[in-house]
């Protein structure tokens, strides 16, 4: 049987309703509430009791409502979502109904932040809409979990709030519609001062056809003081107080009287707006104003209560037996679902796709319905799985095939053979490997092509003969090639061959080797001829290994005019010629120092000790004897932890070097961020105009050095401590100040062989993969790797020759070359090295991995 609340009866009778608001005290004194209730009794139809408004602790709304009822006044209890989850809310609602509370205002509630316990955990398990629905569901006999309420159901006249003044305005009426849909029967609006806006809101509601579906009570608050009005205007979000209200109060003799006048006038203006069914007067901490307002607004007297409000105690006695029954029933119902849930959750993880599929199919068939989607999902899973198995099988087959070839000597060997060669042979072999440049004559190219053919013929017929055949073949074939090339070149250019001939191509190492004469380095060398992957892997379908990059590495130009070198520009991983264009070969710069090196082992020192007193001579030797195409000048002497030589010293050295050689120059500072700013700023003045690279630039000096580099349009070395993100961050920082990415060489901070080369490799590889395959353009800069510095400071490079460690020089050379080649594989584009033989070795290896 439906019991209407008094408020509901007044509203449904078509009369304008009047409600007021009581804020409970922040203590346990019931008299405060009783006194306020007495004040209002007879002037309002019901009184709204806040639920800890603004999140400040007070007597609870439901308890206060009971106290109000004891005074014979009908309460509107409030329920917010801030402090209770759905369990607490439902429990309190059952209680409120059991105690005879018939009106309920459902709110989300103010955030704890605004109250006196800001660190309380905000619950907000539900919002006001979900709460409205929950209340309606309870009334219809269902808990929030869908469980049925056995026994007496709670009953409420459901209210909600809406704020016509909150932005965006256009959503407000729709939101009201949603609240009505969720179960709201009456609405209290936010305090109205801007009547025009409120009218628009009501028109919106009319358009949506909401006005017959809900009783709207307009919110009215008499401003008690100017300060209060201003507070509401400036500090309460979504409260619109026009200036004229504040002016009126400011100009009033009796502010309170004026406040009441304002409220009365507002009521007069609002009551004729279609859809307004009453007023909710919120005289905050000023309840005594309400009777006055009601009387003056012509809303007095109020309709009599049809059913007197009686104390809750009577009802409780009546309800008791019913409550007992309800509890028992609930216990039983609860047990079942718990069991079911546990079983299900245990089963799930064990199920395999197929089992699951079968189960689902069986279930589906039993029910006469199969979930198409789940069936499809299973098929997709199976299909993907089969694909992978197939791919796995394919690669196993390939591997077996390759192994067979290796064992039985059928077909061509899949790897480039290593060969032990004495020094003399080494020289000879290296010479022909000078990359025939496209610019060069056609004859040279032809010869280069001929070579691999001859080689092929040899190993094919008899596997056993291979070693011999090779040993013989090489010296024969190559010397021939070499002299021809030589002759042609020398005919044109004279003895001092290359620099001018090919700006991009690496110079041959021949002259240096001859000059030294004493090179005793025995090394195991690659043959040094390139065989395309398509030939080596012709039994493997291209699709099995081809993975073309989507990105591209920036091309950085170092130096100017004919001597400039280019690094980067790659559209594939280094040496992956089969996957994409690698327009620039890997460059090597010879490292020289501004001061005489102290700790270089004899095996390295012997090449330079005749010139290292003078960086100009040193640079000249590198270029003229060893054919360096670039020089890296390491300003070790300026290091504050070492000699701490001033910037002037660096300027002198750089001047000398620049006048001695015209190859591109890399000026590498001491690594001290502050000192480098000082030194490199000065140095750039000299090297800037001719083109050079300066660095290392780190995060702490990127602004100044970045600006210097931009000023001269020269590239910088962006140096970061071996980390993908740090490298990227530095590039972004540099880009942000205006250094474009094609002016950045990344120094990832490398480690030498045995000193962290694996870590270096994986970081560099990840950076390069991100740039080429991960569309990470901020990482798409060429790498510069300071190899020599790292290798030659290792203990192993300096240990004397002995039985265990072998020859000192060979060891050092191999360490430097291996470090260099490894990092070139990882993406290194410009390598800085020291030992001329190591450089030579690298070129040999690079050539063997490169397309002619």
């Amino acid at each position, binding site marked *: 049987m439906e019991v209407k609340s008094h408020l509901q009866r007044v509203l449904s009778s078509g009369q304008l309703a009047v409600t007021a608001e009581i804020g409970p005290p922040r203590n346990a004194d019931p008299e405060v509430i009783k006194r306020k209730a007495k004040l209002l009794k007879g002037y309002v139809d019901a009184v709204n009791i806040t639920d800890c408004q603004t999140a400040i602790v007070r007597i609870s709304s439901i308890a206060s409502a009971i106290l109000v009822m004891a005074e014979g006044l009908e309460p509107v209890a409030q329920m917010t979502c801030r402090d209770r989850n759905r369990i607490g809310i439902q429990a309190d609602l059952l209680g409120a109904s059991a105690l005879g509370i018939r009106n309920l205002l459902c709110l989300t509630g103010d955030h*704890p*932040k605004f109250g006196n316990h*800001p*660190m*309380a*955990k*905000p619950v907000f398990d539900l919002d006001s809409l979900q709460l409205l629905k929950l209340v309606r569901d309870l009334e219809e006999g269902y808990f929030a979990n869908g469980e049925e309420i056995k026994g007496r159901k709670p009953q409420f006249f459901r209210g909600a709030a809406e704020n016509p003044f909150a932005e965006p305005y256009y959503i407000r009426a729709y939101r009201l519609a949603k609240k009505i849909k969720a179960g709201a029967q009456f609405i209290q609006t936010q305090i109205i001062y801007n009547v025009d806006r409120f009218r628009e809101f009501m028109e919106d509601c009319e358009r949506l056809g909401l006005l017959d579906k809900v009783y709207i009570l307009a919110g009215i608050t008499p401003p008690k003081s100017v300060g209060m009005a201003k507070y509401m205007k400036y500090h309460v979000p979504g409260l619109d107080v026009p200036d004229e209200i504040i002016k009126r109060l400011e100009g009033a003799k009796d502010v309170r009287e004026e406040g009441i006048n304002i409220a009365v006038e507002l009521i007069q203006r609002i009551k004729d707006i279609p859809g307004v069914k009453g007023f909710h007067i919120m005289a905050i901490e000023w309840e005594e104003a309400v009777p006055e307002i009601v009387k003056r607004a012509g809303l007095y007297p109020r309709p009599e209560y049809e059913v007197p409000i009686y104390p809750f105690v009577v009802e409780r006695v009546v309800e008791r037996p019913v409550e007992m029954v309800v509890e028992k029933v609930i216990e039983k119902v609860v047990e079942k679902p718990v069991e079911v849930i*546990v079983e299900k*959750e*245990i089963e799930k*993880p064990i199920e395999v796709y197929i089992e699951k599929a079968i189960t689902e199919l069986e279930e589906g068939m039993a029910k006469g319905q199969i*979930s*198409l*989607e*789940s069936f*499809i*999902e299973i*098929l*997709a*899973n199976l*299909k*993907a799985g089969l694909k992978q198995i197939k791919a796995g099988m394919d690669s196993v087959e390939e591997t077996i095939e390759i192994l067979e070839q290796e064992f039985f000597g059928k077909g061509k060997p899949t790897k480039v053979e290593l060969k032990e060669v004495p020094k003399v042979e080494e020289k000879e072999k290296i010479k022909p490997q000078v990359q025939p440049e496209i610019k060069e004559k056609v004859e040279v190219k032809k010869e280069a092509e001929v070579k691999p053919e001859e080689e092929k013929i040899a190993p094919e017929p008899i596997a056993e003969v291979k070693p011999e055949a090779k040993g013989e073949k090489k010296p024969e074939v190559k010397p021939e090639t070499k002299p021809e090339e030589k002759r042609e070149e020398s005919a044109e250019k004279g003895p001092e061959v290359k620099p001018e001939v090919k700006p991009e191509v690496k110079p041959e190492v021949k002259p240096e080797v001859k000059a030294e004469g004493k090179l005793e380095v025995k090394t195991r060398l690659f043959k040094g001829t390139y065989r395309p992957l398509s030939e080596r892997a012709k039994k493997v379908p291209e699709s099995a290994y081809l993975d073309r990059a989507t990105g591209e590495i920036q091309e950085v130009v170092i130096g100017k005019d004919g001597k400039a070198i280019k690094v980067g520009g790659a559209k594939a991983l280094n040496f992956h010629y089969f996957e994409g264009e690698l327009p620039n070969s890997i460059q090597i710069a010879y490292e020289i120092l501004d001061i005489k090196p102290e700790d270089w082992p004899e095996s390295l020192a012997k090449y330079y000790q005749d010139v290292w007193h003078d960086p100009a001579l040193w640079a000249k030797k590198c270029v003229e004897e060893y054919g360096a195409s670039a020089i890296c000048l390491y300003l070790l002497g300026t290091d504050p932890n070492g000699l701490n030589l001033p910037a002037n010293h660096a300027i002198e050295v750089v001047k000398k070097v620049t006048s001695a050689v015209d190859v591109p120059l890399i000026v590498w500072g001491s690594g001290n961020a502050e000192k480098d700013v000082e030194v490199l700023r000065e140095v750039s003045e000299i090297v800037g105009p001719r083109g050079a690279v300066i660095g290392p630039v780190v995060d702490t000096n990127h602004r100044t050095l970045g600006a210097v580099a931009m000023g001269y349009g020269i590239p910088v070395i962006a140096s970061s401590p071996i980390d993908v993100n740090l490298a*990227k*961050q530095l590039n*972004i*920082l540099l880009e*942000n100040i205006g250094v474009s990415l094609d002016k950045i060489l990344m120094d990832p901070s490398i480690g030498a062989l045995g000193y962290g080369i694996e870590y270096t490799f994986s970081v560099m590889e990840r950076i390069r993969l*991100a740039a080429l395959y*991960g*569309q*990470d*353009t*901020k990482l798409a800069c060429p790498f510069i790797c300071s190899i020599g510095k790292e290798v030659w400071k290792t203990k192993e490079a300096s240990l004397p020759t002995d039985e265990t460690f072998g020859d000192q020089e060979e060891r050092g050379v191999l360490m430097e070359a291996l470090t260099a080649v490894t990092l070139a594989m990882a993406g290194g584009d410009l390598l800085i090295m020291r030992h001329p033989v190591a450089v030579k070795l690298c070129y040999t290896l690079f050539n063997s991995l490169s397309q002619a």
Partner: protein
Amino acid sequence: MIIAERRPLPEILANLSPYKKILVLGCRGCVAVCSAGGDREVAILAEAIRLARERQGSPVEVYEEILIRQCDPEYLQPLAEWMSKIEAVVSMACGVGVNLIADLYPSLRVYPGVDTTFYGANVALGEWVEKCRGCGDCIIDQTAGLCPIARCAKNLLNGPCGGSQGGKCEVRKDMPCVWHLIIDRLKERGELERLLEITPPKDWRPAGGDGLRVRKRPDLTLS
């Protein structure tokens, strides 16, 4: 890492029903590691969408792309190129990725391909367990490294409650009572007296109770 789980296919399909060109966008971050949104899962979902739509008689073009991460604007840049080719994106990244895409590409219809579930550890093959709730104010220095916020159903700070039985939680029998574990451990360390102290109510603001959480490193921000 952030753990996620593929959303049910019918829900994904429902979201995509108006579109004819769809990009399934994977992420090689956390969701790849927890097998929810990496290369393989992208392939499976793309295939499933194709099959389902074919069955429904409204075939669809499904493209696949996997980004290194989706929680970083830089890594999302490739999306700009996709905009003209597709009508909707199903992002298989965690909610962070979906949100960032929505932030950066307002005109792009982006739908979540996974439910982002929790921060967890890969405790066994195919099993991930929540270990942290990101509440912003770590208390596990007091609890022997075991987090009661993440691992106690009641988030008790002065546990265990009366529902701890045989080391198990009453809420779920398969769930160890974390307070039981904490006590065992503190006892071993001779630090049981720690539990005599009443831990005061927690400040929930860093847990998100105060709205959007933001972290700034002034020394790393670009002025």
